[in-house]
């Protein structure tokens, strides 16, 4: 693989991780000594994607801002990889007027018309709107595509099935991504899913299905590349499941008492693994690693500062934007 591409993938992953770490820091900063979900500059539930960077980086490397991405309750990694403006993303997470949704949406409800990015806090319900985006792209004769993301837990929701069938039937340019991080909150995959791989479910719709087993960003990049090329060529949808890892809790504050795999989780962190791989391949050295980290940190801290400096919404505007 081109060193440039590999570097880009790494850079995206670092940017995501840096962002998630910063949000984590800010989220907990003012919830001490007693955790109160409603307190602090960032209140509410917070689902972070540390560990799952390879999925977003590998998939979105093939997209432009004209393509659509619909993500889940755990959306930051896809938002960042797809190029959503970092400042406005951060500002929305802080609930400020310069946020993507002017503070109305919050971290589970991010909408960016510029990059056709959206997400939903309702399990699997981000899939169906992606169908319509793809339908619009197709009707207009473009080669734009839609990427729709869920977790492995979500793949047992009715919307998953309906969406795959409809996309296959109408040959829509959609690529369905399942992020299998082994857990749906506290429920292990074995207690939610009757088959070891969601890739086999593609057969139920006559579309290609692939499972990437090792959370490798390059494997994701390759498999997603094929699926996206198919979609752009008018050959219809594909399903890709990536076995990834949730390094942290389901949401911040989750003690993960239910999780027997907690001890081994750190070893599965894809960032040091990929970094080591790229060092071995001579794509990365100390300087580039530092430079990339520094650049990521600078961008993220600027975004956090932007967010903090943005005004809180005026309560007098609380009823705005219900109707256009």
């Amino acid at each position: 693989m081109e060193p440039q591409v590999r570097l880009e993938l790494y850079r995206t992953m670092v940017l995501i991780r840096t962002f998630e770490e910063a949000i984590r820091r800010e989220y907990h900063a003012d919830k001490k000594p007693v955790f109160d979900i409603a307190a602090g500059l960032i209140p509410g539930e917070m689902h972070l994607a540390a560990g799952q960077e390879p999925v977003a980086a590998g998939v979105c490397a093939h997209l432009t801002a004209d393509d659509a991405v619909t993500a889940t309750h755990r959306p930051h990694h896809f938002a960042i990889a797809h190029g959503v403006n970092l400042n406005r993303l951060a500002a929305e997470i802080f609930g400020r007027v310069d946020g993507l949704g002017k503070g109305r949406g919050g971290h589970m409800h991010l909408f960016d018309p510029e990059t056709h990015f959206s997400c939903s806090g309702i399990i699997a319900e981000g899939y169906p709107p992606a169908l319509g985006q793809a339908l619009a792209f197709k009707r207009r004769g473009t080669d734009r595509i839609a990427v729709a993301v869920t977790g492995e837990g979500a793949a047992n929701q009715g919307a998953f099935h309906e969406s795959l069938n409809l996309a296959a039937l109408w040959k829509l340019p959609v690529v369905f991504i399942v992020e299998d991080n082994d857990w749906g909150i506290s429920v292990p995959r074995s207690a939610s899913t009757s088959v070891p791989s969601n890739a086999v479910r593609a057969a139920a719709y006559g579309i290609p299905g692939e499972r990437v087993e090792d959370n490798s960003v390059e494997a994701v990049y390759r498999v997603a590349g094929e699926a996206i090329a198919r979609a752009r060529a008018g050959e219809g949808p594909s399903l890709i499941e990536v076995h990834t890892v949730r390094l942290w809790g389901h949401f911040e504050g989750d003690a993960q008492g239910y999780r027997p795999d907690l001890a081994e989780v750190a070893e599965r962190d894809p960032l040091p693994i990929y970094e080591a791989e790229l060092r071995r391949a001579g794509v990365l050295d100390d300087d580039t690693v530092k430079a990339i980290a520094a650049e990521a940190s600078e961008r993220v801290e600027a975004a956090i500062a932007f967010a903090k400096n943005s005004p809180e919404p005026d309560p007098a505007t609380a009823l705005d934007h219900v109707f256009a």
Partner: protein
Amino acid sequence: MTVTGTAAPSTAQVQRRLTTAKAMVEAIALEMERDENVIVLGEDVGAYGGIFSSTAGLLERFGPERVIDTPISETAFIGAAIGAAVEGMRPIAELMFVDFFGVCMDQIYNHMAKIHFESGGNVKVPMVLTAAVGGGYSDGAQHSQCLWGTFAHLPGMKVVVPSTPADAKGLMISAIRDDNPVVYLFHKGVLGLPWMAKSRRAVGPVPEGDYQVPIGKAAIARPGTDVTIVTLALSVHHALDVAEELAEEGISCEVIDLRSLVPLDTETILESVARTGRLLVVDEDYLSYGLSGEVIARVAEHDPTLLRAPAARVCVPDVPIPYARSLEQAVLPTPDRIRDAVRRLVSA
């Protein structure tokens, strides 16, 4: 009837008479001609033309790329309509019976209705969700409901319910052109279907061409002085029938056809009740926690002294719609029940 728009002749001069179903279809066809972003999707909207003739002839005219039969996957195709609307199309998605909302309500109320708000106004969802409502022909507890109260309770979607052919057309054009999601509920009993007993008002004058009925404005279907009957859909026809009858007894009923639940035209209601001093809400939806309570509350929170008699309602009394005709007729807001309620009101 209030009509606005380029060609808005009053129905008084209109000779041409259409059924409500044909008027609806005419509106969709006009808009499909005007704007290629308008598409129709749903179950049996193509060759069948809609189980209730709500899309009859559209496939033949506009082809299968724009009039799209879907699988029985309401979550997927209503969601698809949402996504297409987000990308600038203007889809009309048909939920065959409103009773099926339970399989796809998340897309409707958590997505269609909320995306605009959550996006801080940056994303628009200009779509129409149509559905057939209403009972009276023994279709049982899962195919006879109105449920408009359920939609109207949840923020972010407009909700309109026509009762006449002319309104059906004008409200449909308004709904399609609205930049917001509009839930458009049509009562089977007002459509003028060949296979259902027709109300004589299911066929009526419909202006040609392109006109809008504004969303959020009630119509005074019949002016009167003794009692205000606030109602909608098929019950408007029943109320008018009763009003005609009671006029002979010297009771003068004002019949308000709401036409829109969201926004609700509170002003027209208040103005009428201020004149009549008596309020009856007739609603084919369930009695409690719905439209009838809301209308009465709007009056009581404005000025309870407007009510010279206790407010009254004739609704489906919190019971699933029974199949047997004798039972169904006992729970629907029939002319008999409306007549009795008006008589009780004026003698209270």
